[in-house]
């Protein structure tokens, strides 16, 4: 059996996915990125490969594609593909009915429209500022002195929303601290934070041609409060993907690796 790999060396997390010849996901790893993307990718690949008896190392993969900001630093990669193309393909593989994606990663937000074959039809990217990305949520969770997962659920029980006016991560953190100091309910402040990010996603979703449904990918897709806020603000259904949404870039890269590996074997 041959195996094909995708490694998404992201700014915050490094993800690795391995598929077999049929395209079935057989191994995956998500780990915190280090400052050196080569080391991050190497560690994630080693960990993923170790779960498969047939493989001794990443170089035994029949084809490997790097993606993410460190895509050209992935060891043993045969080539690299942008994360925009890979997220589209990853989502297409797990749910071909999805036509629009919001990829909310560690440091940017992308709206992607997917064609019928999983390729990119159109995309838009907000990369000017970290507000509204994973880094923003990490800063907010830090301000609330709670783990990210706990913070992501905090807004779900809020009865009101306290608007957050600051557009900058640093200033928003100060605003949150002031509101907490004033004794405002934590869940309502959290709801305000989720709402502000959802509004930032609105433009990207429109550019991704989202009409009645959209899928979230990237680490922030696991943020329950954000999902609820996006459904509220965008007035569209957020599709639940059957596979970890944070893995979509790596999975798309692995699928491209499979297609390219099989094609080159035939040639």
């Amino acid at each position, binding site marked *: 059996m041959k195996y094909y790999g995708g490694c998404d060396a992201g700014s915050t997390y490094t993800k690795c996915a391995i598929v077999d010849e049929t395209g079935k996901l057989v191994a995956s790893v998500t780990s915190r990125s280090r400052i050196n993307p080569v080391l991050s990718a190497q560690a994630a690949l080693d960990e993923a490969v170790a779960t498969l008896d047939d493989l001794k190392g990443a170089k035994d993969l029949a084809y490997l594609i790097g993606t993410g900001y460190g895509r050209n630093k992935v060891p043993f990669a045969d080539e690299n593909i942008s994360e925009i193309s890979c997220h589209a393909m990853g989502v297409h593989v797990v749910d071909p009915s999805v036509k629009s994606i919001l990829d909310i990663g560690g440091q940017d937000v992308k709206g992607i429209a997917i064609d019928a074959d999983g390729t990119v039809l159109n995309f838009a*990217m907000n990369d000017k500022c970290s507000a509204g990305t994973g880094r923003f949520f990490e800063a907010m969770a830090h301000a609330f002195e709670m783990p990210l997962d706990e913070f992501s659920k905090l807004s779900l029980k809020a009865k009101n929303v306290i608007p957050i006016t600051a557009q900058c991560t640093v200033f928003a953190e100060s605003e949150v601290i002031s509101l907490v100091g004033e004794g405002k309910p934590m869940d309502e402040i959290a709801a305000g934070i989720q709402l502000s990010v959802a509004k930032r996603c609105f433009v990207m979703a429109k550019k991704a041609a989202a009409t009645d449904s959209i899928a979230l990918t990237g680490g922030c897709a696991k943020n329950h409060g954000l999902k609820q806020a996006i459904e509220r603000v965008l007035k569209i259904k957020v599709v639940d993907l059957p596979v970890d949404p944070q893995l979509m870039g790596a999975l798309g890269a692995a699928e491209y690796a499979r297609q390219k590996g099989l094609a080159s074997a035939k040639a």
Partner: protein
Amino acid sequence: MKDLKHLYYLENLLQDANNNLVREAQAGGRLAVGSVCSLIPEVLLSLPGCFPVRLRAPNTGSIDLGTYYMTSMSCECCRALLERAVEGGYKFLDCIIAPDACAQMNRCVENIDLLKLCDKEKFFISYSDVPMKSDETALRHYVKQMRIRVLEQLSGVYGVDVSDAALRAAVLGHNEACRLITAIGEYRKEDNPRITGYEFAVLCTATYCCPKDLLVDKLRETLDELGSRQPDSGKNFRARVVVAGSEIDNPDLIRLIEGSGALVVADRFCFGSLPGRQEIVLNDGEDVLLQICRQYLAWGKCARFMDTAKIEERQSYIDELAKSYHADGIIFEQQKFCDYWGYERALGSRVMRDDYGYPVLSVDLPYAVGTNAQLRTRVQAFVESIEIKNIQGKVTR
């Protein structure tokens, strides 16, 4: 491919506005005329005893000083030029001749004036009103402005010879550099071009910021060298693109685009060659200045020309370039906060995609690009979408 013989030398010239060739020309007693826009014909600044220097701010980092004077909502290029002026980077200039074309560039030049950032004894700044249309009335106005705001200023302050004979001599020199650049640029039409977009951008940008007569030997040798240059056997690119839009004075941006898989085969931007490096054709019967101005108005592809005919002409010109340079797609760009190109990019991107059927990537750019991982991602994703659509035969045109 083996590096072009003069590439390193030319790259070094682009590291400073006051470069070696500028210093050499000034040491020979010639006047350095600062220029900020193609709407002042370069050839008028190339009269005997003068040479034009199109202002750039190489190796820009922060633009906080420029932002203090111009606010954070103005064009980054204008702010970067002012920043460089505040740093003392344009003190070598003998004058600046600017068009009253873009309010933001005017503020930049006005601040250079008010802050006395260029302090040579006879230094002056002249503003010219330039037309927004290209009809006969506009031409008459343009000629008059060039005469009183450019020629009479140079003649009055520095005694520059502005006779028809002097203008004809300037045209001859200008044309030689343009002919060489155009001939070099023709190689970009090849299936596997023997020159990259980056290399061409270095050559072309150098012609805007160095005395052309001191550069032509290097251009001539480069053209000869290209005649026998062998491109790499395999193609080092995945798609061919036209880059259209506002100011790109930094070839590193072209290198970044090409590093993401898109070979830049045509340069329809400020500091580019299309248009910008055509020869000026003169007849013997008419006034020389009139002929020069007429040709500049006819070529003009600046987004400041706002009549419908010019807007449509700009779009069809990009289409012509894409066809003749065999481009797969178009990158439409603008300097962040550029008013004219902001509008043009919004409209042009849609028209080129929906009406002409080209894949289009639309981006706004900071003045200092650096390594810009985000831009790399955008361009690479664009290239991948072109590649896949081409394979699948989905391109509609």
